[in-house]
């Protein structure tokens, strides 16, 4: 069980400034929201930079501090939500250790105590009962109740709640409930415009800026086909992968084929069209 728990969230010290280029005013909004400790909802398709953004913000807000207890402190605790994620996965649980029982804090509790940012990625995937724990943390109360221990913890003054949500492929019954939604400040993300995206691709993949610009251009063109059997356009992440393949010596046409065309659709005709776009750009 302990093992499973480790896999459900990520907790580490961000030591270097993550590379992030602001697309709009998201940095200012985040800062302002943080000042007021307003919880945040990051909305946008997969691979458009939400996670990177929150990492960047976490670093900027707590550049290189130590935690209150003097130990190495994680600025950001990320939980990837999934169908079987329950409230106790977030809050914590007792475990048996020999004849002893030991309480282990869940990621959320840890963040609440240490004053980190807790980022619940893809919140709609989690089971409904998790919202019960989030709600009191996401409004003026800022408290976490741990039923098992009969405790109510008041959040550390630095604690911040952030969740993400991809409006693209959710079906109706996987929508976020209004009662949850209305507790958050929402920042909408989309794939960055080509001139920013090319910088990102170039930086992340190590490709020269010309190839990166072409990849960004291609991204734009492929996203134009979104309605034709593509669930989502090609993500910045995939464009970076493509850049990495090209940097690794793969022929650009082939790199696009494996990292873009074949990845985003199974429909033959659309694949062909994407191939033609690729051979137009490259």
């Amino acid at each position, binding site marked *: 069980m302990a093992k499973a728990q480790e896999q459900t969230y990520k907790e580490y010290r961000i030591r270097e400034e993550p590379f992030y280029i602001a697309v709009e005013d998201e940095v200012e909004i985040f800062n302002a929201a943080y000042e007021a400790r307003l919880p945040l909802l990051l909305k946008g398709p997969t691979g458009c930079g939400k996670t990177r953004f929150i990492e960047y913000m976490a670093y900027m807000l707590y550049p290189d501090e130590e935690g209150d207890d003097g130990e190495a402190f994680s600025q950001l605790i990320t939980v990837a939500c999934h169908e079987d994620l329950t409230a106790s996965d977030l809050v914590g649980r007792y475990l*048996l250790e020999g004849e002893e*029982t030991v309480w282990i804090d869940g990621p959320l509790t840890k963040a609440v105590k240490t004053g980190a940012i807790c980022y619940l990625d893809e919140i709609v995937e989690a089971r409904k009962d998790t919202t019960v724990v989030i709600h009191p943390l996401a409004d003026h109360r800022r408290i976490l109740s741990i039923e098992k221990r009969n405790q109510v913890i008041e959040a550390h003054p630095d604690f911040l709640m952030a969740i993400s949500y991809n409006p693209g492929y959710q079906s109706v*019954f996987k929508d976020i409930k209004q009662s949850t939604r209305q507790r958050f400040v929402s920042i909408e993300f989309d794939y960055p415009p080509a001139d920013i995206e090319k910088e990102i691709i170039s930086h992340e993949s190590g490709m020269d800026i010309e190839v990166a610009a072409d990849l960004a251009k291609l991204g734009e063109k492929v996203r134009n*086909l979104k309605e034709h059997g593509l669930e989502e356009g090609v993500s910045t992440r995939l464009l970076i992968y493509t850049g990495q393949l090209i940097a690794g010596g793969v022929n650009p046409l082939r790199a696009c084929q494996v990292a873009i065309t074949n990845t985003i659709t199974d429909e033959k*005709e659309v694949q062909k*069209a994407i191939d*033609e776009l690729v*051979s*137009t750009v490259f």
Partner: protein
Amino acid sequence: MTEHGSSGSPLDSSYQEKIAQVSERLSSSSFRADVEFKRASTAMARVLSLKEFELWANLGFELGNISGRSWDCATEYFKSSPIVMEIEVFAFLDLHQWVGHGKELAAISAEAAASYFKHSPRFINEVDLWSLDKWVQLGRRLLDDHWKSSKLTSAYFRTSLECLPIFGLKGMEEWVKVAAALSSHSHDVGQRFLEDSRLWFAPLTDAEREKVLQISMAMAADDYTSIPKFFPLLELHQKKVKTEVRKPLYEICLNIAAQSAEDALAFLESAPLVLSRIESKDQIHLAALGSKLSDISWEAAMEYVNNLPEILATLPAHKVPPWFEAGMEVTTENAHAGTAYYAMESRRSQEEITRLQRTVHLEDINRLLNLYAEGLTARKLKIKKLEKESGLSATALPTTDGEYIQLPDKVAEYEDYTKNFKWYKVATAHQAGYYEYDTFCFSIRALKETGLGEIPRGLREKVARSERNDLEGFFQMFNEPSLASMLFRLMEDGRVDYLLRTNYRGLKRDMLPIMEHAMAERPPLRSLTPRRAALEMLLHITTLGEVRENLDPASEVFYNFIRGEVQRVFDADATVSDSALAAARVYPLIKKLPDMKGLRREIIEALAERLGNYDGDIDELLDMLLAEAEAGDTLEDLEGGDPYLLDVLEFRGDTKPEEVQKLMKLKEIKDNIDKLNEHGVPLPLDLLKELLKMGAEMDIIGMDEEDLDSSSGLFITNIDGLSEIPAYKKVKEMLEEEPETLQQLLYGDMGINDPLESIYYYDEWDHLIDDYRSKWCKLKELSPGDGDTQFVEETLKDNSEIINVIRRQFQLLRPEMFRKVKKLESGEEIDIDSAIQAVIDKRCNLTPSEKVYQRRDKRERDVSALFLLDVSASTDEEVEKNTPALPTADTSWKDDKYSNPGYARGGGGPPPPPEPSKKGKRIIDIEKEALILMAEALESIGDEYAVFGFSGYGRDNVEFFTIKEFPERYSDKVKGRIGAIRPQRSTRMGPAIRHAISKLDKADSRLKLLILLSDGYPQDFDYGKDRTSKEYGIEDTAKALHEAREKNIHPFLITVDPAGNDYLKDMCGKNDYMVIEKVSSLPQELLRTYRTLTYR
């Protein structure tokens, strides 16, 4: 007929005496005749007078005495007599005729005559007395002096009765001819033919039967021994070859058989094998071609069919017809050459194949290019075939109109397929480039900002003062708008291609060779007039960037000037304004250049001198030149014709930007109107005015502004043609009519006068244009009517046993299907995780949670199922009890099941094949039964479900019958509606599915099922232009099903159409359908399907 006594009473003594008398005489001649006579006599005595009786008996003697063997015949005569007398239409007077035929026969063959007497009563009964002669005459054709022919003729009398329903009396003549032809070679073969005929011919269609008889005749004439081999092959075809394909196949076969029975057999033998290698959708068409060919040369046709798989390995199916047609020409000239052609042996044939292989057809890449253009431009640009198509020539050039990019229908200019495809790609990118680089966004306002000061003076003032803001307005500022327009287009094409090349290095790779190719065939500059040479230079510069020819000094000066101006558009930041600016700046010079040859060189050189040696501001010189040129100070054009005709480049096409600009503006207005209409907002006056302004000269006749007061405004719906024909014409027409009429018309069109009915509009997919037809179908929600619950109750009663089984099956399924819900206070099982937690809690001295149970919860099943019932007319078809029913989808249009002319005529007529005593169940009844059983199962399991029926007639009249909505309970009212369902009209599946989707979309279950019960392919009289083509409907339905999947709805189609396998794979995808062979098993199959679909 007179009765001489009731059946029970003993016979009159006079009869008894007579009987004894005759019997005594008979017994001395034939024991068997005597026996039969005595047996028949009682019945005969009752209906005949004594005199008649005597006559009857005497006729028997006459028969018996005809020949030594004719007593057999008399025996049959006596035996059949009571039977024949029973027939209502048969009177005693007819006895002579009846016996007459027998006597004639007996004179030749007693055996044949005996058979005649044996079988003729049935003939008279089932056909009529008047046809008896014909029937006998047919038999006599088979009779000659060979002893075996007696057997043959007897066989005829026997088998013809069985075959009569198949051929009809008329058709039998051909049949007998075949038998006669065969028996002239071998009586045995002839006889076997007669005896096996019923077996062989019954499964064939009318048309097939006729063809098969003709083939048999032809074979019999050539080699009678082929017949016994022929029919087993037909049996094989029944199993392996589709009906529609058999028809052309037998046509070919007939032509072959006329020449060689042996080859015909070989052909028939190989056909199924050949066909098995051809995709089923291509078979009919390709076979039909073969049939056409066989009329000219049977040998060529044989080669053609046998080589089809090979041809298809080299050419796609749609390219076979052009190859075929070329072969037809060859064959008409020389049949041998044709045979070699179709054997793919001749060079001509090979050349044709290579040519077709390299040809790219637009229809094959239409969607691909659609996506490509949309990807490039982010606009819903669509590709279509050039309207005036004539191959790839100067008259069929790519163009665009704001909505479509039009391209030639095929390209074969280059030596291989890839290159021709690239031509399409580059041409598409060029047209798309106008949108990508904002050609049609030209505005005079932007032009002013770009460089008002650089426009030559005379023009500058006009631009500055301009009231118009569009391209046409710009061109109008020149004295010669057509020249201005041409210059602009050259500059703009140059700019667009430049931008494409710089932005897309891949495209550049493809574009350069095409440019080179296009420029390779330009006329030499020397051969042109000075003005044309200048234009040609401009073309060279905008494509290749240079002129490669050697120029004379004067031309060199012009060239340098023009090239300098083109640099303006060869810039990554150049806009459409730069093209206009560049055009305006080269205009004065080109306008000044004369459009004639052989002019004194001095004039040209003087102009070059002025330009080349000008040391002031070049702009001043341009001002001057423009002033001179526009003042008419140019050398008159001495050559007639259009002076500016310049062959444009094929890949750049021929687009009129000023027209496109107008069309796009109109489109925008139209979209606004559509939007307003959608929201039920009347057309505001401003918009209407703007619309009218598009046709500058138009005024509103018979309507003043008060009439058009926006509060009472107008709805305008039907202005679809807006982008095709100048839309204002249509609007004008509408407005010229009485305003009230117009208003009425518009309101009527909207259907808004009918608030009681729920009306919905749906788009329909047209695969021919690769796009939806917007709001094409009007769907009405209706009630099937109220009925009573009787049908449901009866069904339940009839199926009570099955229902118990169903319930048990479904309940049995239940536990496994249900989701576990953990952490409950009570439940069926212990939830281990929670239990452990509770133990830990207890150790920690915490109050452990009592929620340590888990249960499989019914609600967690989370299924919503919508059943959509095809209630088209064809579901009225009865289903035969035991034999598999064969309803075809189009039985509603024509019902020729029993129409057999020869058969149906005549007294009383024979009954069609055995009819069930009580009216049999129809498809719809079985559909309903299936529904009722399904409902039982669903009720027991608790899934959400809804039931609807659909039919309709035409796109304006799609009917959607609500039987049960999702939230509705399975009430008596619902049951009544089920009872009330009855067959309606056509089967337009697309809109019905779309409406069902909208219903399911509102449900919030994890699994949403759309189950369609149908009996045939989608069809309606206007489902696609070509009513005989199923393709349109199938494509639309496939699209609608696809839309369902996109909405997370799982569609599944169950059909009882045995031909379903032919089209359902394409329509539904290979896993989402099921063809039920036995209609009566529909209920079980539906239940089974439902179980598997929801068992995940």
